[in-house]
């Protein structure tokens, strides 16, 4: 279980991005995080694996306090948490297989990895993951030769290489053609349902939330304004989260 207690992040220049956010995520849950842009979704996800240092509050995962972990402990925690990004965050000039193998960096001997040497099992595993997301034939291609949808699959394969117990997905489909959204979300769903990996996913479209999430939390100006099942978001709640000007679509 992941529990977040009074998590607060104030960026330099007194920009409050998270304000005493508290919630729990049981293992194996698919949690959606919604909110307007600027609400603090990305900040929240990045605080969980401390890509961003929280200003205050606590994050405890399976009894380990992430917020007070030392650098080395943090690396061991991070390698158990896969991350998928809105902009894919792949290394565009490298090959697909190299990007996927990068998911193993937290596990393998650092000295070998510096000369780009990965154990044979890891290479096999990378090919298997690429097959799983349907782009096994692109393994040797350079990432910048791939389409957006294919790139996000590489991103997912990289996260899967970590043997994650949790996946943080920051608007994984927001820069993709809506038609592709379901195919990407589908992979996350499979990982969540079949392997019991906890997924915390920030989303823009409510229909995706309804379709995939077990539970939703909503942020507004850094504060938690809703927590519950997707069905519970009615018109009133919607206006509360997104503001009175918002129109419900989908």
């Amino acid at each position, binding site marked *: 279980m992941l529990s977040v207690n009074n998590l607060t992040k104030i960026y330099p220049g007194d920009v409050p991005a998270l304000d005493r956010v508290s919630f729990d995520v049981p293992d194996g849950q698919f949690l959606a995080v919604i909110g307007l842009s600027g609400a603090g979704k990305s900040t929240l996800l*990045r605080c969980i*694996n401390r*890509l961003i240092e929280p200003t205050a509050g606590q994050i405890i995962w399976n009894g380990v306090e992430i917020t007070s972990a*030392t*650098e080395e402990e943090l*690396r*061991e*925690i*991070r*390698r*158990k*948490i896969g*991350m998928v*990004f809105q*902009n*894919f*965050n*792949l*290394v*565009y*000039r*490298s090959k697909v297989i*190299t990007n996927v193998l*990068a*998911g*193993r*960096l*937290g*596990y*393998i*001997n*650092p*000295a*070998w*990895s*510096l000369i*780009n040497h990965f*154990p044979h099992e890891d290479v096999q595993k990378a090919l298997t993951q690429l097959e799983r997301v349907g782009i096994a034939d692109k393994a040797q291609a350079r990432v910048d030769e791939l389409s957006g949808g294919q790139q996000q699959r590489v*991103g997912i394969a*990289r996260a899967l290489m*970590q043997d994650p117990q949790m996946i943080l997905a920051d608007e994984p489909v927001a820069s993709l053609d809506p038609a592709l959204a379901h195919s990407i979300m589908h992979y996350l769903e499979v990982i969540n349902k079949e392997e019991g990996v906890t997924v915390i996913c920030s989303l823009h479209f409510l229909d995706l939330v309804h379709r995939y999430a077990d539970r939703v939390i909503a942020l507004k100006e850094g504060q938690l304004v809703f927590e519950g099942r997707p069905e519970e978001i009615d018109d009133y709640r919607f206006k509360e989260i997104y503001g009175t000007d918002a129109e419900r679509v989908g």
Partner: protein
Amino acid sequence: MKKKIPSAWKSIRLGIIILMTLVVFAYGFQVTKINLDEFRKESRQESRVRVIRALARPDILEYQQVETSVAAPLYIPCQTVESKNPSFDQSQPYILLIPACGAPGEYIQVEGFNFPPGLKGLVYFIPSPDPNDKLALQRGNVQTDHQGHFVYELQLPDRHSDQVQYLRVVVRQNVGHPHFSDAAIETWDKIIETLFLALLATTIGTLLAIPISFLAARNLMKDVKSSLTQISLMIIGLTLGIYFSMTIARWMRGIADLVRDDLTSTIIVAVFCGLASYNLFRYGFYKPENGKSFGVRVYLPQVAQICALLFTFQFLFLICQVGIQTGLTITPRLGNLAFLGNFITRFSDLINTSLPTIIALSGGAIMGGLSSYCGRRVSEKLPQKLLKWINFGFSIAAGVTICLIIGSAIGWLYEIQNETQIRLIPASIGALIGAMISLSTKPKEPLPIGLAIYSITRLVLNAVRSIEALIMAIVAVIWVGIGPFAGVLALGLHTIAALAKLYSEQVESILPGPLEAIKATGANRLQTIVYAVIPQIIPPYISFTMYRWDMNVRMSTIIGFAGGGGIGFLLIQNINLLNYRAASTQMLAIAIVVATMDYLSSWMRGKFV
């Protein structure tokens, strides 16, 4: 639209500005001594014409020449006896002087026959009774017609003599095929030297600039933070590490010297060290199981790695000896390929000389790293109160260490022998600073050591970059003597600074996304650089390196002006010797090389990026 009316104030202001500009320019003329009188002088004009004509005829090709030289006796003034031309063999070239004597200032006619046709020749007056005397005064030019005949009006010089004097006409004729002149061959040699000078400087500069550029990149360094314990321990460890490794390096050199005279035993020991280091490395980097090992065993691979490194260094020392010996032995037997043997000797010697420095630095790095690791563990595990005291101690020790080093440097520079001044005072200042820092920070507070390193690196780079390579060459010449080596050092140093700056700007402009993603996988800092940073910076790095090579070729053509070797050395020599035709050859060569490099580098940059 409102119409602008120039106010009186505006006109006055404009007037003042123009007036001030005029004054500035007038003063500029004064200080730069712009004066056309010198320009108009006759002597200037003459030398100008001579130089320009010489420059227009670069000394590249020459012919073998056959000289037709004929002398005839001449009396100034006329003697009572024998003042007429001797008889000549009419089938050979000969000259007739009509008359063959006269008073100074009188004109006589010189007529030549049977010379090679259609050529220019020179007329010399030889003020000596010996027609082959070295002293020959050039009087004028002749041009032979198609029959090899010419006529020349000679004004007799003011050279009275009772004895016979001579007049000589020399016509030079090119024979055979043109071949490269000495100047051209020399120029070619030096151009090659220049290109390699630039190549070496660029290679050395690039290799060193790459790691430095990471230190000078703000985006990589700003997250590097350490606790005070860690920093102090690292400073102490680094210093001790360098000190101990210098001792170790001395021992190693001693071992290498022991067996030096016997090539066979050197090779045997070297092979042993090589094998030992190979096996230890294999053990040290043995692929880990995903599980954890316990107890002391955890550190065994690290110990193995350090031992492996020691054996590697010993191996290198021995191999250098082998290299030097082999090079010396084979060089005389290689003939045309002697430069290869020479290279082996020189290169081994270079490694041999720089090994102690490399060992000292690696030792410092290892000890620094280890103690910094200990420092981190200590500051993570211990409670605040205790840590405060530990920090106090370590921070004072670190302050003393740094200040003692600075103190001895100052003592050496200014030749201070006074112990108090170079030991006690710096030590107390260091202790004071250390104590103040430890008291003013919280025990576990992460200090921005990365930004500090970043700022220092930037400062040093900017300082080095602001010194022109030509000036560095002057200093390098004092260090290693006149020659291309000085040029390589000067250009290399300048290249490091310039490239590190350019590179680090590239590192700063990479996409932050991949960096974040690689960090999120649990990668350590070095892995993050290798997997997220390096792939992004390869194209600009290649492009900048090309650009720099181009620039270095340009610089290396003139670095010789300051004694740095290469073609510039030859050029400035020839200019000083007024040997303008050879200088012209070298300028031409420089122009060709620079233009070609310019084209090549832009073409290659276009290919890579």
